């Protein structure tokens, strides 16, 4: 059954079709959300929220992009909003004395490449990080990323290039090895 047929059945009120649609797309959505959150419970919450919003708005899906891309767009939006709220809450909780340490990556502390890369990626600006995770980690195309983030493919390419440049600088000693 293709996506169009599945959408028709969901809109007709078939709960079985909702499950089929969920099964077809949940792995890809969850993987992306988990990569962005690094937290199982949050990834579950945001994935659930993305599907619920997707089901609610399915009648508005015009087919301009693939259904999977449309769902990922919702998931990315939910995740970024959730992470922003979390960041604001943490900033309120952390006292001013600790504030200068925020966002500083202690790259010298860990000799392991994977850990250092993870820290460096975590320290990227939100837009760079999102594009990097979608493209270099999860394998999305620039067209898919552009559709998901509501930007031009050229913007996605530029952000990826800048993200890689920052990572190369941060991990220069590994790159030389």
């Amino acid at each position, binding site marked *: 059954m293709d996506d169009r047929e599945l959408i028709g059945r969901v809109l007709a*009120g078939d*709960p079985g079709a*909702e*499950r089929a649609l*969920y*099964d077809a797309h*949940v*792995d890809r959505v*969850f*993987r992306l959300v*988990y*990569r*962005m*959150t*690094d937290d*199982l*419970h*949050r*990834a*579950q*919450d*945001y*994935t*659930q*929220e993305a*599907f*619920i919003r997707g*089901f*609610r708005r399915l009648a508005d899906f015009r087919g301009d992009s693939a259904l999977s891309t449309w769902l990922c767009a919702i998931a990315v939006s*939910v995740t970024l*909003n*959730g992470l922003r*709220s*979390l960041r604001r*809450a943490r900033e309120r909780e952390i006292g001013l004395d600790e504030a200068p340490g925020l966002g500083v990556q202690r790259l010298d502390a860990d000799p392991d*490449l*994977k850990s250092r*890369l*993870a820290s460096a*990626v975590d320290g990227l600006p939100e837009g760079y990080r999102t594009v*990097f*995770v979608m493209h*270099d*980690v999860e394998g999305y195309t620039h067209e898919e990323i552009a559709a998901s983030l509501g930007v031009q493919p050229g913007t996605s390419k530029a952000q990826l*290039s800048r993200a*890689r440049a920052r*990572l*190369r600088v941060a*991990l220069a000693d*590994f*790159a030389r*090895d």
Partner: protein
Amino acid sequence: MDDDHLEEPLGAAARDYHAPPPTPREAMWQAIEARRRAERPGTPAAPRWIPWAAAATVLLAAGAALGRLSAPGTPAGHARAPAAADADPGRPRVNQTAYRIATIEHLDRSEAFLTMVRASLRSGDRERLAPAAARQLLATNRLLLDSPAARDSRMRLLLQDLELVLAEIAQLPADATASQRELMGEGIERGAVLPRLRTVVPAGTSSTRGDL
């Protein structure tokens, strides 16, 4: 170093960035299904023990009835749907004042309600009555959207945005997680619904403030 890919070994390390565990497919589906079931038609209506929210519905119904009865030359027993009656230029116009009063009352109550919910979210309190109250307001909101009150495009947009916010609150489960509550807070802020409500509702005209 070219720009087409992240060279090894960085590329390999990138693919392991925050490596996801197996998808908790069933656990997530159960949560989704529970919320979807609650949204489907036929779900039992919210209890009507929230008097101020119920009052808004009653007020709207009264406003609609007043509008129909006050339309010159329209027999009460033959009142038509207000939107249809108003769309027909050959028919007498319904009394717009009644709808305007009902709308302002509804927006005023909604503004007070959203302010209360937002304060609860910020203080970390659990507002157990909020979903039921939101459902009551949602019912009124939908009636207004189908009425001549929504003819004005600015008012219609406000009611539509308000509907989204109320729907999110109405669907908040009793055991909502912190992230669900955070998302609801985001929903209230989105579209600047609260400031727009405050702009529409004239200061000092409310007769409902004491209810909260």
